[in-house]
């Protein structure tokens, strides 16, 4: 079905280091002593907490409700008691804390009632809603919610399942495909149906022959619109645009996405999670994590989400000279600032690093403009230009050179003979540009609000003035007639004069107003006095008497 493969530009071939951990089967990690489950699933959205400290929860129970269109559900990974809801460090380069639910497992691992979800019987929206409430989001890269990636269900022709796993050291997807090929493909078929794609292409790097074979065997039972394709091993073949290019030949230009060309991409882990959610009614509670590097027993473990890295590492036994830990691969991963961070759905690998295994980079030297980085860049960028502009903090220029098409793959820094940490510069630039954008939006909003407030104040002033003017005009119009009545009743002497002076008119008006007020006061009677008890009436009478007395006293005092 696939007649030929294509090449993407650039790429590098770092040592793969896969065999260390790929040999042993996936091991079920023991229940941790406690689970720290962050309510923030990604940088984009935080779930609303649904539990309280002290509450008992079951495995798979909802503990966080996804908020906004990008939010997904959060669940308890095992049964136990919620101990606290407090900030804990999160798996992020910043090492900042985020609100997390801490659960003390009760050791029983008791499930909620799991009911398979028949997605064919319900509408597409309901099926996406189910995936959303099951907390399914991308397990390969940025952790984008699956229900959002499934989009509107139109315009997608090819579904790409990404099993390339191109980063060195990581083998969790390899083991997953070798041991659970049927589940992965079943998930892929559900995704295909939900997105309305015609064909499914599974791309696997050719350094995983066993995985390819197992996946091919599983695919042969499904039909011929699923093809398992071995792609040449070249980092970063697992990049979305690169894999699409290799499999379909579509070159996605800068600033565009696969979906613009009818291709959508999901990770094999995500496909497997979809399979569990639909056919078993299980939310996303665990994932496979590779523990490797400078450890005694490298391997893959099925780990409950929320297990803290420190507890997990005991399974692999880091050696004595380990000086730091990397979450993710050596090319794109982040250095962990605390071992208290929990495993999340995107934690594919923990590498124990030692100075012998990962020697510290030699000092940075000036760029010699050799162009190696541009040759290695899979995104067709000119890293040395981006570096120049980032270093000079000339962010506008950096953007002109398509900074935001950089996938931070690290190929450029890998080949740079001057050992310039190019990606660090690009990340810095991107962060600054985003911050400026946020500031700009905030100041635009402030300007608009300030202008509106000034406008409102002006309007209120004008309205008040208009009201006063209208009232004054009205009174003036009434003046002669009021004067006539006042004159009629109050002073015949004034009436004798045919044209009363304005002064007199005003006096007459005041007199009339006073008289009206007096009349009104006398006429006022309490309204709710019909069905009062005798005592209350007596009480009211007493109060009235007191008030009367005081009034007369006041009147006496006033001269």
């Amino acid at each position, binding site marked *: 079905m696939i007649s030929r493969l294509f090449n993407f530009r650039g790429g590098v071939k770092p040592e793969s280091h896969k065999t260390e951990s790929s040999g042993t089967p996936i091991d079920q990690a023991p229940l941790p002593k406690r689970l720290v489950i962050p309510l923030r699933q990604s940088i984009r959205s935080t779930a609303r907490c649904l539990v309280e400290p002290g509450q008992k929860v079951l495995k798979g129970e909802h503990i966080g409700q996804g908020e906004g269109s990008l939010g997904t559900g959060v669940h308890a990974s095992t049964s136990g008691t919620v101990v606290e809801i407090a900030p804990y460090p999160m798996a992020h380069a910043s090492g900042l804390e*985020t609100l997390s639910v801490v659960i003390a497992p009760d050791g029983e691992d008791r499930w909620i009632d799991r009911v398979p979800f028949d997605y064919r019987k319900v509408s597409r929206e309901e099926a996406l809603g189910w995936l959303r409430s099951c907390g399914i989001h991308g397990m390969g890269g940025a952790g984008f919610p699956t229900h959002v990636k499934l989009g509107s269900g139109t315009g997608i022709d090819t579904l790409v399942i990404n099993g390339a796993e191109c980063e060195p050291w990581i083998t969790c997807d390899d083991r997953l495909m070798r041991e659970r090929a049927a589940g992965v493909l079943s998930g892929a078929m559900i995704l295909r149906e939900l997105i309305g794609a015609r064909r499914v292409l599974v791309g696997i790097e050719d350094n995983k022959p066993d995985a390819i074979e197992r996946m091919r065997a599983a695919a042969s039972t499904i039909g011929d619109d699923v093809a398992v394709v071995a792609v040449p091993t070249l980092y970063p073949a697992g990049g979305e645009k690169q894999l699409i290019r290799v499999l379909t030949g579509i070159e996605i230009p800068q600033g565009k996405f696969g979906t613009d060309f009818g291709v959508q991409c999901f990770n094999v882990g995500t496909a497997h999670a979809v399979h569990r959610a639909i056919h078993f009614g299980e939310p996303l509670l665990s994932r496979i994590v590779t523990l490797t590097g400078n450890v005694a027993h490298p391997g893959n473990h099925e780990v409950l989400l929320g297990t803290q890295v420190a507890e997990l590492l005991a399974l692999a036994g880091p050696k004595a000279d380990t000086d730091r830990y990397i979450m993710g691969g050596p090319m794109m991963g982040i250095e962990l600032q605390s071992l208290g961070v929990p495993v999340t759905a995107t934690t594919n690998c923990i590498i124990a690093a030692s100075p012998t295994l990962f020697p510290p980079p030699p000092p*940075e030297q000036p760029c010699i403009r050799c162009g190696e980085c541009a040759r290695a860049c899979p995104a067709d960028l000119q890293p040395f230009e981006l570096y120049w502009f980032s270093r000079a903090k000339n962010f506008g220029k950096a953007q002109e050179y398509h900074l935001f098409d950089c996938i931070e793959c690290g190929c450029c820094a890998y080949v740079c003979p001057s050992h310039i940490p190019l990606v660090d510069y690009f990340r*810095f630039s991107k962060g600054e540009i*985003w911050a400026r954008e946020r500031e700009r939006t*905030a*100041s635009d909003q402030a300007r608009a609000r*300030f202008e509106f407030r*000034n406008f409102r104040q002006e309007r209120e002033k004008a309205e008040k003035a208009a009201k006063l003017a209208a009232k004054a005009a009205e009174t003036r119009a009434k003046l002669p007639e009021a004067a006539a009545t006042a004159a009629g009743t109050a002073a015949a002497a004034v009436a004798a004069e045919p044209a009363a002076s304005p002064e007199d008119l005003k006096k007459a008006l005041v007199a009339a107003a006073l008289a009206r007020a007096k009349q009104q006061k006398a006429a006022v009677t309490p309204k709710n006095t019909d069905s009062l008890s005798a005592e209350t009436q007596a009480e009211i009478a007493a109060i009235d008497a007191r008030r009367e007395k005081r009034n007369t006293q006041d009147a006496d005092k006033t001269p």
Partner: protein
Amino acid sequence: MLTAILIMTGIAIVLGAALGYASIRFKVAGDPLVEKIDAILPQTQCGQCGYPGCKPYAQAISNGEADINQCPPGGEEGIRKLADLLGREVKPLSEEHGTEKPKSVARIDEQVCIGCTLCIQACPVDAIVGAAKQMHTVVAPLCTGCELCVAPCPVDCISMAPLAETVETWKWKYPVHELRSAA
């Protein structure tokens, strides 16, 4: 000769009319320079520059009445941008107008608030909600940190807190690079 003069005159009249029409039809509302300056100012609307808001200050700069170094919230970067725009020298922030501080937001101690509405009247961007004799509160995402609400509060329940770094606002730092000294 006469034809040439007539033709030239005709062209002049037609083009003149076209230009005249265009100048009325496509008249730019407002003063473009003021808009450009205003776009650089931080819109904190704090009045520290000595003008009742950023726009009046922008107007004053464009009229040549005010210097470019009077806006503390805009800080050094703001001054640099203004200098770039106006082709002037960069100069340090004028001390009499204040110092550059980290961006803060106001917070009302809701237990203490007596509901006098004075802060609402002071806020230039309507970032405070409340009503007479009701508890008031600051809508933090709208607050520009201008501090204008702090002084009017009769029970001193408004404090300014610097914005904490969150995952959304966290940034990668500028790489520290050491150049190898020539051996």
